[in-house]
C-alpha cells in the first residue's frame, strides 16, 4: 500500500513537473531567442535564428550601436526614475489607503473600497485622450512627472485591493497594544503593520513594476521628447519603416531586461511568501 502510494505520488509529481517545465520553456523561449540573437551578426540572425552564436556568427555590433547612440544611458535613467518613483508612490499611498480601509470604521467604507478597486477592471488607457488634455493644460507634457502621475494612478487600485486584504489579517491586539503604549497611528502603521505585510508589499511591487517598465503607450504619447524617452521608447529608434536594425533592437531589449531583473530578484523572496501566504496558512 505504502509503496503504491509513494509510486503514485511520484508519477503525479513527475506529471506536475513536466507541465511546469513545459510552461517555463514556453515562457522563457522568446527571451532566450532575443538574448542569443543579440550576440549574432545580422546575417546569422536571419539565417539561423535558433542557433547559439559561434565563433563565426558572434558579434557585438548591436551593443556597440546601442551604446554609440549615446542617449541610451539617459533612456535607462528615465525608465529607472519613472519606475522607482511610481513604485514608491504606489506602495506608500496604496498601503496608507489600505490601512484606512481595513482599520477604521466609517460611513461608506466598503463603498470606498469598491470604488478604489474599480480601477483594476477599467484599463487606464481608455482615458488617454482626457489624460493628454489634462497634461497639456497643466504643462506636464514631455516631463517624467506626467508618466509618474499616470503610473501611480494605474498601480494604486491593485495595490489598495491586495494590501487591504492582507492588512485585515494583521492582529487587532497588536495595534491596540501600540495604542495603549501611546504610539501614534503613523507609527503603528509604519512600525507595526508595514513590516508584517512585507510579503504582500513585494507582491504588489512586482505586479506594479513590470507593466510600468515595459510600457510603450504612455511614454509615446506623453513624453516622447528626446530627454524624457524611456528604454522601450528608445528602442523604437532602431525600428524604421523600411529598414530595421535588428542587432540594435535585440541588444536594447536584452539590456532592458537587466534592471527589472535585479528589482525582481530583490522582491522575489518576499513575493513567494506573499503568494503562498493564503494557501499554506
Amino acid at each position: 500500500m505504502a509503496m503504491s502510494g509513494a509510486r503514485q505520488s511520484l508519477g503525479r509529481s513527475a506529471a506536475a513537473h513536466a507541465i511546469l517545465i513545459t510552461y517555463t520553456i514556453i515562457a522563457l523561449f522568446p527571451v532566450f531567442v532575443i538574448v542569443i540573437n543579440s550576440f549574432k551578426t545580422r546575417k546569422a540572425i536571419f539565417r539561423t535564428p535558433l542557433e547559439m552564436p559561434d565563433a563565426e556568427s558572434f558579434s557585438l555590433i548591436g551593443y556597440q550601436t546601442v551604446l554609440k547612440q549615446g542617449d541610451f544611458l539617459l533612456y535607462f535613467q528615465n525608465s529607472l526614475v519613472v519606475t522607482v518613483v511610481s513604485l514608491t508612490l504606489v506602495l506608500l499611498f496604496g498601503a496608507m489607503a489600505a490601512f484606512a480601509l481595513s482599520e477604521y470604521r466609517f460611513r461608506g467604507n466598503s463603498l470606498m473600497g469598491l470604488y478604489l478597486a474599480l480601477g483594476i477592471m477599467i484599463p487606464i488607457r481608455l482615458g488617454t485622450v482626457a489624460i493628454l488634455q489634462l497634461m497639456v493644460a497643466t504643462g506636464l507634457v514631455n516631463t517624467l512627472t506626467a508618466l509618474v502621475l499616470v503610473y501611480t494612478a494605474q498601480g494604486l487600485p491593485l495595490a489598495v485591493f491586495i494590501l487591504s486584504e492582507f492588512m485585515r489579517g494583521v492582529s487587532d491586539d497588536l495595534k491596540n497594544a501600540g495604542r495603549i503604549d501611546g504610539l501614534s497611528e503613523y507609527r503603528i502603521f509604519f512600525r507595526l503593520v508595514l513590516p508584517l505585510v512585507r510579503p504582500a508589499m513585494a507582491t504588489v511591487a512586482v505586479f506594479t513594476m513590470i507593466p510600468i517598465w515595459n510600457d510603450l503607450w504612455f511614454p509615446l504619447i506623453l513624453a516622447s521628447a528626446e530627454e524624457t524617452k524611456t528604454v522601450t521608447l528608445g528602442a523604437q529608434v532602431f525600428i524604421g519603416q523600411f529598414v530595421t536594425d535588428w542587432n540594435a533592437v535585440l541588444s536594447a531589449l536584452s539590456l532592458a531586461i537587466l534592471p527589472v531583473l535585479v528589482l525582481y530578484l530583490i522582491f522575489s523572496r518576499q513575493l513567494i511568501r506573499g503568494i503562498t501566504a493564503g494557501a499554506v496558512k
Partner: protein
Amino acid sequence: MGTLKLKDVYKSFGPVNVIKGVDLEVRDGEFVIFVGPSGCGKSTLLRIIAGLEDATSGTVEIDGEIVNARPPNDRGIAMVFQTYALYPHLTVRDNMSLGLKQAGRPKPEIAERVAFASRMLSLDDYLERRPAELSGGQRQRVAIGRAIVRKPKLFLFDEPLSNLDAALRVNTRLEIAALHRKLNATMVYVTHDQVEAMTLADRIVVLNGGIIEQVGTPMELYNDPANRFVAGFIGSPQMNFIDAGLLGVSDADTIGVRPEHITIVPSGGDLTGTISHVEHLGSDTNVFVNCEKAGLVSVRLFGEHDFEIDSERALKLDPARSFRFDRDGQRLR
C-alpha cells in the same frame, strides 16, 4: 490607587446594541472578572474601559476622573491581550520599555522598572530575545511584564490564558493571583471560563446579552444565584433544571439543583431513572441518569463509585440547596 466606575454605559455598532446599560463600581485593589458566553459584550466592555472603543453613551471614570475623551495611553491603564500582541521586531526589553520611552520617562527609571518586572516574572534570561524565540507561556509573561512596567492604576486582561495549554493555564493562573497579591493593584479580567473566574476573582460580573445579570463574590454566585442564567453558568457540571410539576412543586416553573446536591438512593427519592453514563474522575464520579420526562440529570458524587449502565436508580434532591425559578427564569425566594 485605582478605582473604576461605569455609569449607564451603552454601546452600539450601527443598529446592533452590544452593551445595553451597564453600571459598575470597582474598588481599589479589587480583582473583578467579567464572565459570560461569547458575544455577551464582555470584551467590548473591557475595550471601552481601555479607550479602544468609544462608549455610545454613559461615562467611564478611573480614579474619580471621567476619561471618556482620553486616549488609551493617557488613562493610566495597561492591557494584556489574548494573543500576547508583542511587538515582533523588538526584544523583550524593548517590548516592555516602549510605553515608557513613548511617555518620555528618564532612562534610569525605565531600566529600573523593567528590571523589577523581569525579576518578578523570571524573565531575566530572556531580555535580549525576540518574541519569536519564546514559548507561549514566556510570551504571555512578557505581555504581563509590559503591563507591570507601566505601573497602571488599572490592569486589564482580555482572556489572557485562552491561548495556553491546560497545564500552563493553571500555572499562569497562579502567577496572576500571586501578582495581584504582590502588586495590590486593581484588575479587571475578561474570560469565558467560569473556573478561571471562580478561582481568581474577588468579585465576578456575569454578563449576558449586553447586560449585567449579577455581581457578587464567587460563593455568592454559587450559593445565591439571582436567576436561571447565572445558576446555569456558574458551576461545573452545569446545574440541573427540572420541571417543577414533575417534583410536585406548584409555586414555581423550574427547580434547579446542582449535581453535587443530588444523591443516589436505593429506593424512594424524588425521581427515578436509568443510568446512562458514568465519568470516573478519581476524586469525583459524575453519573448521568436518564429520567424520562425530567431529561438527563447529572449527579456528582465524591470519591469512587460504580454503577451498572442501564440499571434503575432513584435520585434524592437536597431541598435546602434547591433553587426555584419562575417562567422568566427569575429566582423565587
